[in-house]
């Protein structure tokens, strides 16, 4: 059966290719340490399960040491603009067709693979279909555009260098969340928030729940970490048991109040910092800055919706 481990093997191969190509990249002043960083990530993809917990911890220390002390540089290798324009005129809308192969394969594969449970792990159908889409797009792209097989890897390496250490930030923050959970950070925060509610005020409790969800999500970068804490501290004892709120409405909209917090925090790296790197923004927080104007009114609306809809 095809499982996520096949995709890890593919990802490991791609990171290894980035490392090998990076090693020979004369335009990158820190070619060796940059290559070592992607090589460690390839090792994690290939052998993460065999390394053991402490082994993986040491691997993370290596990644952080390489990136944290300025070991990552950027290579070049971009195709000059006039050449790109000439190729754009030549290949036309074929380029869009290839670009759409990945989302279309992911979409079709998700449905198709669920019907083939013996062949493909149904829980991971979309990620496996996404990887398949990448392989198809690469094959079609190289043939149709008459590009050599190293062109996509070289260009991918260039883009990867631009993303740099931000590439592993989401994984690092998920790991920090695990340490926070082990240390019981959530319970302490929940206790503090519940003490801040004015006595006997339903509106105060609703605001504390919605704001607490958003604030704790801003700190943790993840509404999933905030939700159990805020619901245990305020949602269940006050909103549901004391004021008889509808649990479905309180919790469903409460979670979305947390999502408003996700729009506002660098801790949600894969949504906010990674695209800034990927789109080559000068301001690391540029995406967050654009999201403030949507997140704050939406948070207010969500809190109001809980107050109006959940209570009899």
């Amino acid at each position, binding site marked *: 059966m095809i499982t996520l481990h096949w*995709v890890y093997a593919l990802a490991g191969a791609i990171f290894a290719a980035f490392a090998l190509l990076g090693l020979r990249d004369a335009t990158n002043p820190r070619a060796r340490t940059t290559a070592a960083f992607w090589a460690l990530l390839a090792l994690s993809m290939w052998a993460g399960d065999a390394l053991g917990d402490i082994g993986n911890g040491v691997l993370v220390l290596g990644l952080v040491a390489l990136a944290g002390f300025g070991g990552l540089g950027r290579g070049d290798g971009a195709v000059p603009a006039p050449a790109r324009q000439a190729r754009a005129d030549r290949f036309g809308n074929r380029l*869009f067709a290839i670009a759409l192969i990945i989302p279309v394969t992911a979409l079709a594969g998700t449905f198709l693979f669920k019907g083939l449970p013996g062949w493909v792990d149904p829980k991971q159908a979309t990620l496996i279909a996404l990887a398949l889409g990448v392989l198809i797009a690469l094959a079609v792209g190289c043939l149709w555009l008459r590009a050599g097989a190293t062109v*996509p890897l070289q260009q991918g390496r260039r883009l990867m260098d631009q993303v740099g*250490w931000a590439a592993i930030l989401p994984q690092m923050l998920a790991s920090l969340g695990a340490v926070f959970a*082990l240390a019981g950070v959530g319970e302490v925060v929940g206790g503090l928030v519940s003490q801040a509610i004015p006595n006997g005020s339903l509106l105060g409790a609703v605001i504390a729940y919605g704001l607490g969800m958003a604030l704790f999500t801003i700190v943790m970068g993840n509404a999933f970490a905030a939700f*159990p804490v805020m619901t245990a501290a305020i949602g269940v004892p006050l909103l549901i048991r004391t004021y008889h709120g509808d*649990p479905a409405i309180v919790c469903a909209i409460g979670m979305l109040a947390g999502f408003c917090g996700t729009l506002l925090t660098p801790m949600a790296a894969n949504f906010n910092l990674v695209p800034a790197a990927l789109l080559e923004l000068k301001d690391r927080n540029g995406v967050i800055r654009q999201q403030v104007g949507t997140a704050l009114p939406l948070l207010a609306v969500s809190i109001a919706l809980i107050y109006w809809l959940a209570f009899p």
Partner: protein
Amino acid sequence: MWVLLGIAIIVAGFLLRFHPLLVILASAIVTGIAAGLDPLAILAAFGKAFNDARYVSIIWIVLPVVGLLEAHGLQERARGLIGAMRGATAGRFLTFYLLLRQGLSAIGLTSVAGHPQTVRPLVAPIAEAAADAQSGGLNDDEREEVRAMAAATDNVGLFFGEDIFLAIGSILLIKGLLEQYGIILEPLQLSVWAIPTAIAAFLIHGFRLWRLDRRLNAKRNRGEPAP
């Protein structure tokens, strides 16, 4: 209370713009020590979680495809296409993408689109090309703003679409947690209550995109010289 020191380190580290990877590691070590954990246990917990979260980093496998297409003029082609379309504006295009992203997420197709696979190669260049045409030439700050808005639109569409889908992680988390308190709910009872906020998200973000269009159009009408 001492375990909150780790949060203080995170906040201070991001505000002072220290290297985020070092800040995260420092926060994990301090939090673990404050909770009375052995340093090796902290390292093992961190390593195990890092390995378990590998699927998050799979998405980078799309970069070779994006790189191949960009080297062959994908962004230039996007500009050409938008230039030939009358009435295409950055705000209208992003509103269309917002609706599409919300709709796809609401039927559970969250990984079909995203920053590496659709925003970098398609959404951001198309929005930028449209904004360029309608404003009579973007300056650097406006170019940044349009790109950032493209990324923001993807996030808003994803977050406030996915909870409408029954089997998404957040719905299952809510259901599981409430069961611990003896409250039994069906996923459908939860997911329908994601709809009001989803509509509000579309209206608020759509309004902001409409305002973006007005600003860009006004610039051309003032006849400011292109940079």
